[in-house]
């Protein structure tokens, strides 16, 4: 198919190989987000394997492309998957910037795209597309869910510290929205750069401020450094540390030693969630990979399941993107994270949020779910 | 100031940290003069040239050129205005050919340096290339015109150094030990050519080869420890006891340098 042909013809729907269904996954496999990408992929593979890489009698082929968490590369790879590999469906992107970057391309080419991580609010708000559905979370869900609870249980004043990038700021703003609505007061905010190396200066400032607690959004190596230094500079004794679940998630908690113990966070899944779906998922994952699943593994697993169920509904015929999208919107099941379904208005997932606390169990820092906030729905604007 | 004074130096001095290298030197140079400059090693001759050419700025004093003050004029501007120097230590564009070195001089002189969209080659700029060829021919460097400078022998590079200075068509030419490192044969040849330079060209030459300097100069300046010891005719200098003492050495007379 030359470029001239494919741009002059209106319908790109040429006959594809009918024996297989191709799924393109855009995931970072190098750079800072490599381990997130890796876990998402592991989760997806776990699910597809459980159904024998077959859906509605067709083989599933998963093509993973490395986005390097770079929008340009992401777009280039999306084009490759769509134009070259002719995939039936796209999923993935860890980075919101990458998701935004490919949004128009996906929309224009009517390519069903199930977002399995990127949480930027606008993806299901101002940048909503008929072909984009999100099964992961939005930054609003993460931040907002802790606001009321923190006011009720932690204290009346907080200091906010969040990594300085769009996602960090969105989460912080959502928390602030809920917290102040509940009556709490934000006494200060600080946004250290992403990948900041030394928090001592910020921590000294925070320490000398008058706040009951500190709401923090950090992830990955930032979370390790922040939580450790939070303890080392003596803040832990004075101010409760609360934040998003990534502050004490599976991939960082062990590295924090016991520094994270006592932290309160909100998130949409936890390893210690006590449901039979979760137990089964964890058992399967640990058997296959001999490691604990992370939240990204769960996201991958769920995304794979949503895709498979939707394809099952359309009988394995992915040639009409509108039908595929329609099928996705109707998927609902009880996931390891609890019951999930899509909001047909916003294309965003409706899910439970959990308040978790980090405790010491047998000398190990472990999270425990202390409260469930059910069916949290993104407002969509 | 007299009318035909082209260069006038008024009590300039130069310090480096605590060292005073040039001490209140004053000098007037008339147009077309041929001045030889000698003095012991480290007397400040090269530094004096640096000051004239603007490669260093003086710590005190003033320099006038063609009646205008130019004490703080930057070096490239002075070169454009006609004060041109050669370097004691070869200072060429080593990766380029001799021809390319020369063309860079000529293209500026011919006002072509700011031509942007016309290739510089023999077809598009025949006059430029012809002139370069002529110069290389005259100065006996034609065979090495297309050699890269860094592959030339030391003495050959010295010859290029002088050629670049002359090709600038200066009004005042400052030659810093032009024949050092050149063989006797080349020295003789170059000196002949220097004699043929236009009469209205002002030349100042630093040289330790007394034959060369006394052959060229009609006025001699002896610099000693940062000040002018003698400023006079070659004969005055030749006869001066102090010069023999500090510079030429006993038992030697000018002219006996060579066989």
């Amino acid at each position, binding site marked *: 198919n030359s470029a001239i042909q494919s741009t002059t013809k209106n319908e790109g729907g040429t006959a594809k190989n009918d024996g297989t269904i191709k799924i393109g996954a855009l995931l970072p496999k190098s750079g800072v987000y490599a381990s997130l990408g890796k876990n998402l992929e592991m989760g997806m593979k776990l699910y597809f394997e459980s159904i024998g890489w077959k859906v509605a009698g067709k083989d599933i082929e998963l093509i993973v492309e490395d986005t390097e968490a770079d929008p340009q590369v992401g777009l280039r790879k999306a084009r490759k998957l769509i134009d070259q590999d002719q995939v039936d469906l796209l999923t993935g992107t860890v980075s919101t910037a990458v998701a935004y970057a490919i949004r128009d391309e996906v929309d224009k080419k009517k390519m069903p795209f199930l977002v399995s991580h990127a949480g930027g609010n606008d993806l299901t708000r101002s940048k909503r597309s008929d072909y984009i559905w999100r099964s992961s979370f939005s930054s609003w869900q993460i931040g907002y869910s802790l606001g009321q609870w923190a006011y009720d249980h932690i204290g009346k004043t907080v200091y906010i510290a969040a990594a300085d990038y769009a996602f960090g700021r969105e989460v912080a703003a959502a928390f602030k929205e809920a917290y102040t609505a509940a009556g709490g007061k934000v006494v200060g905010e600080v946004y250290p750069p992403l990948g900041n190396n030394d928090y001592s200066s910020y921590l000294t400032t925070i320490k000398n401020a008058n706040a009951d607690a500190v709401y923090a959004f950090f992830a990955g190596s930032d979370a390790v450094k922040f939580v450790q230094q939070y303890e080392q500079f003596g803040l832990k004794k004075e101010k409760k540390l609360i934040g998003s679940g990534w502050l004490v998630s599976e991939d960082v908690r062990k590295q924090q030693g016991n520094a994270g113990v006592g932290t309160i966070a909100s998130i949409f899944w936890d390893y210690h969630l006590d449901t039979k779906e979760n137990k089964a998922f964890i058992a399967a994952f640990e058997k296959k990979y001999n490691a604990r699943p992370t939240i990204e593994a769960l996201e991958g697993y769920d995304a794979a399941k949503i895709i498979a169920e939707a394809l099952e509904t359309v009988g394995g015929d992915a040639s009409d993107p509108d039908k595929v999208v329609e099928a996705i919107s109707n998927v609902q099941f009880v996931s390891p994270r609890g019951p999930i379904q899509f909001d047909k208005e916003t294309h965003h997932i409706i899910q439970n949020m959990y308040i978790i606390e980090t405790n010491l169990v047998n000398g190990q820092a472990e999270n425990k779910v202390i409260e469930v906030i059910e069916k949290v729905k993104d407002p969509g604007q | 100031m007299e009318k035909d004074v082209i260069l006038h130096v008024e009590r300039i001095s130069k310090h480096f940290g605590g060292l005073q290298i040039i001490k209140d030197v004053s000098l007037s140079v008339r147009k077309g003069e041929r001045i030889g400059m000698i003095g012991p*090693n*480290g007397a400040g001759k090269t530094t004096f040239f640096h000051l004239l050419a603007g490669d260093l700025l003086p710590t005190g004093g003033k320099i006038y050129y063609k009646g205008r003050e130019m004490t703080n004029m930057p070096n490239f501007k002075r070169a454009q205005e006609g004060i041109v120097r050669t370097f004691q*230590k*070869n200072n060429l564009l080593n990766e380029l050919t001799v021809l390319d070195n020369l063309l860079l001089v000529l293209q500026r002189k011919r006002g072509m340096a700011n031509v942007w969209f016309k290739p510089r080659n023999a077809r598009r700029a025949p006059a430029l290339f012809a002139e370069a060829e002529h110069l290389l021919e005259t100065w006996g460097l034609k065979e090495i015109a297309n050699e890269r400078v860094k592959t030339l022998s030391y003495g050959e590079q010295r010859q290029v150094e002088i050629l670049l200075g002359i090709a600038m068509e200066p009004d005042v030419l400052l030659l810093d030990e032009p024949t*050092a490192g*050149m063989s006797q044969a080349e020295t003789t040849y170059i000196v002949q050519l220097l004699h043929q330079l236009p009469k209205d060209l002002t030349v100042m030459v630093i040289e*330790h080869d007394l034959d060369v300097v006394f052959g060229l100069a009609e006025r001699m300046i002896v610099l000693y420890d940062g000040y002018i010891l003698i400023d006079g005719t070659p004969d005055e200098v030749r006869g001066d006891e102090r010069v023999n003492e500090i510079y030429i050495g006993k038992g030697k007379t000018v002219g006996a340098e*060579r066989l």
Partner: protein
Amino acid sequence: MLNVYNMNTFYGDSHVLHNVSLTVEKGKVTVLLGRNGMGKTTTIHSIMGMVPAKTGKIVLEQTEIQDKTSFQISRLGIGLVPQGRRIFPNLTVKENLMTTYRPAENGWTLDQIYAMFPRLKERESSMGGDLSGGEQQMLSIGRALLTNPKVLLLDEPSEGLSPLMVQEVTEIIRQLKQQGLTILLVEQNLAMALELADFVYILNKGAVVFGGTPNELDIHVKNKYLLLSS
């Protein structure tokens, strides 16, 4: 002391030295003359291992050195005063002298060099690159002497020196010779060269065209290879 047999040296493809053979006798001053670009410096560099000869043999006392690297050659006792001085501009005068100093019994010391060139002592803590041309030449000579060599290669040591200093250096070379040092001297200053020479070679187009005592160097040869005869 130092013998060069049939040396051929190339820069890339260009054949610069053609079967050059030289004998530098112990305790003598051997002078190498020739016009610009004839291969004098290349000869020196080949002996020193800086531009290794492609073929030929170079023997210092009994050791063949043509395959050695220049620092080994230097340590075997060959000192070099290079053309163009090649002072280390970002080292002080004292550092220039002392960095490569190799002490020897009854050998040169820093104080002796300073006594010989008082100017260097005055400028002891100046950067090498700031020195005047002549001062750098003195420094270059001093630096080579402080490696306390057995054979000294001098490539135009008088360049840039005032007549007075030329005499001084001539005197030094004479003394060195008397102390038994072996010297290979390249010079454009014929007066100086012939005053010192025990034996003279002339290079022309990379080949040895004359070898003999200064007395044998008649006006013919000179006109042909050294002077401008047109």
